């Protein structure tokens, strides 16, 4: 079943990769360039899943998770964090904020799809 997924990343090539992968699987994708942009784009419409980079300008991934958990209409929305190996220390911080699923970059498109399916199929 088609899902609405928000992808938050400051790298446009990464957004493109994720978007292509997800739309190819039939999902609807909303793009945001950083945490602040994401919060601005989330104006009450239903989103099934949020995929977010950790390291971003303005509002980083962890700040975004904290902000989302505070908003009743998004507090139960699953969030997948995209991290690199060097950001493992951020994981504990992200977990404390409420991020539950992690994908380590670089990843294969299939990996991303299977994570999405595990969470919202």
């Amino acid at each position, binding site marked *: 079943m088609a899902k609405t997924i928000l992808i938050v990343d400051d790298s446009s090539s990464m957004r493109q990769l994720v978007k292509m992968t997800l739309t190819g699987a039939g999902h609807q994708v909303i793009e945001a360039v950083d945490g602040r942009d994401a919060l601005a784009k989330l104006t009450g419409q239903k989103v099934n899943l949020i995929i977010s980079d950790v390291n971003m300008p303005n509002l980083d991934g962890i700040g975004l998770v904290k902000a989302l958990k505070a908003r009743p209409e998004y507090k139960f929305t*699953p969030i997948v964090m995209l991290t690199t190996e060097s950001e493992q220390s951020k994981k504990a911080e992200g977990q404390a904020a409420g991020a*539950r*699923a992690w994908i380590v970059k670089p990843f294969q498109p299939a990996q991303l799809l299977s994570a999405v*399916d*595990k*969470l*919202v*199929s």
Partner: protein
Amino acid sequence: MLNGEQWTQLLLGFIEEASELTQQAEEYLLQLDQSPTDEEALSGLFRAMHTIKGSAGLFSLTPLVSFTHHLENLLMAVRDGAGTLSPALISVLLRCLDEVASMVALIDPQTGELPVDEQHQAQLLATLAEQAQGVPGVKPLAVEPGAEPAAAISGTGGAWHISLRFSADLLRNGFDPAAFVRYLGRLGDISHLALIDDTLPALAELDPESCYLGLEIDLLSDASKTEIEDVFEFIRDFCTLHILPPDSALDDYLQLIQQLPESDARIGQILVSAGLLTENELQAGLTVQASSEAKPALGEVLVSQGVVPPKAVDAALAKQKASREKRVNDAPIRVAAHKLDELINLVGELVISAAGAQLHAQKHGNALCVESTQTVNQHVEQIREVALKMRMIEIGDTFNRFHRVVRDVSQQLGKDIRLDIRGADTELDKSVIDQLADPLTHLVRNAIDHGIENAEQRAAAGKPAQGLLRLNAYHESGMIVIEVSDDGHGLNTARIRDKAIARGLIDAQANLSEHDIQRLIFAAGFSTAEAVSDLSGRGVGMDVVRSAIDALRGSIDIDSVQGQGTTFRIRLPLTLAIIDGFLVSLGDEHLVVPLDLVTECIELDASQLTRCTYGYIELRGKPLPCIDLAAHFGLPPSHTVRRNIVVVNFGRQQAGLIVDHLHGELQTVIKPLGLLFQHLQGISGSTILGSGQIALILDIANLFHTLHHSVEADSRTNQPRPDLTGS
């Protein structure tokens, strides 16, 4: 997925396990024949059938599953009904076990196919059902071959069992279990799923955002355990997950039942309805567990009822735990025999190369080098001993098999015979034991058939009505001795002599001792039975037994007192792989004499000898038969003036081997002779010396045989010669 070869390996493992279990089952059954109320034997028997059934299902060996299922059912009924097995029922069960054994033997390890004689099985099961009805405590069996068990198997076509219990926070964290179930559906077919909502409260007490649920899922899938685990990677912190591979052991399911928070019966029923367990297995399993594993639970019950103070229970539990741990530490590891052979072969090579190193060190005379090679040699020696010990198994298992033979054969002949087993813990090489089974069976059958008299004859001879057959094993001077003795009428030497003369084996005037006449039964084509009986006749005589023992580098002897009984005594080397030898030489040729057989070495002048291959010298006033090995093997005559005689003992006989030089003791690995040299008389193998030279190992049994024949030839030509029997 497993490839064909891996599967065959697994199947071969099953075949081995199943034949061992059948063997064990038979022993338990015979135990029950002696003491029908032996609960341990009964549950052991049940377990054996149960395990075979369970594993057979894994390989889709449906006929085996369904057959053992019937046996299992009956045994369970007997156990639960506190009934006993009647001798008649035991007889049928023995035949059923034979059928199980034959099915196991018929499994094709390549294809997994199992041809079955369905008619025979149906007859057996019908007889079984008939007998079972006559026994108090046993409910009548509904024997409908294949019906119920087939249903039991169909559910276990490779289903993974997945148990999930979610933590309360799962849903709040944005996880939806349904998503994981859908994802799981991609890995295979979800054959069963039960949503566990036992802790879900009524609406009034419900926190709707908390999760109260669990899942029991059966998944038909080729996926690996890791793949299945990965489905739940994101919720690992929010659930407890148990994954049982397809067709796990009953114990694993039982363990799962205990681990899960719901009642045993609740989870048990889920597994039963999923077809992973049968109702019977569940009940049986829980009962077995309650009686053996779950003692602590009993302890708790006792304390809570105030029957036992907690401390006493603690102590008892600690003790149980210790003994259980000990059992784990002592648990044997199953190793393929060929791997052990490989190890022993390598150790054998090591023995040789270490000997070579020591030889070189001694040549160079470097003291340090000599010392360290000596240490190496000591260690090699220890390794050798340990490695050889690994091949050693107790002969008890082999002996115990004869309970069945004795029972069956004596019943058939209407004789009452007791089997007495001694020295069951005597160990010997596995390959020796394997090759010993046939000759032993022959000797045992022979003793029952021809040795022990029937009741009337025994009464007339003033003997107890019950005949006695004894199997005994013990160590004696580096050899294993195995005795098969009976208290029957003994050998009739007059008759043997007549027959031997009639068959042209000996000359009518031959002057033979009692013992030599007795030994004639080992001659080819000799049979003492008046009428060839169905049991041990079959045209095979003692000569076959003897050649089997010869092949093991052993010897067989006989002791019989007329009217009192007969003892067959088999002597065998401890192992076939390595021997302690005594190195001698003839010119440039090196020969090894098995050290165990050497009694002394004597130096003598060439003039002392007669110039023939088989002659005599005088040793301390007694004639000693001698073989001139050079002449025997057709080597050029020796020019050495002073020669040596190695005196060897073989059984009761003694003889001298005439050689040139003595080199002393050595430890050596026996290498079989190639096909080309197998016909060589008097040589049993070869070995490579530390120097790289090849030495031949003498086959003493064969040499004695040759010597004996030359003596017989002498006695036939009526030239009086001293008796061979020296001791």
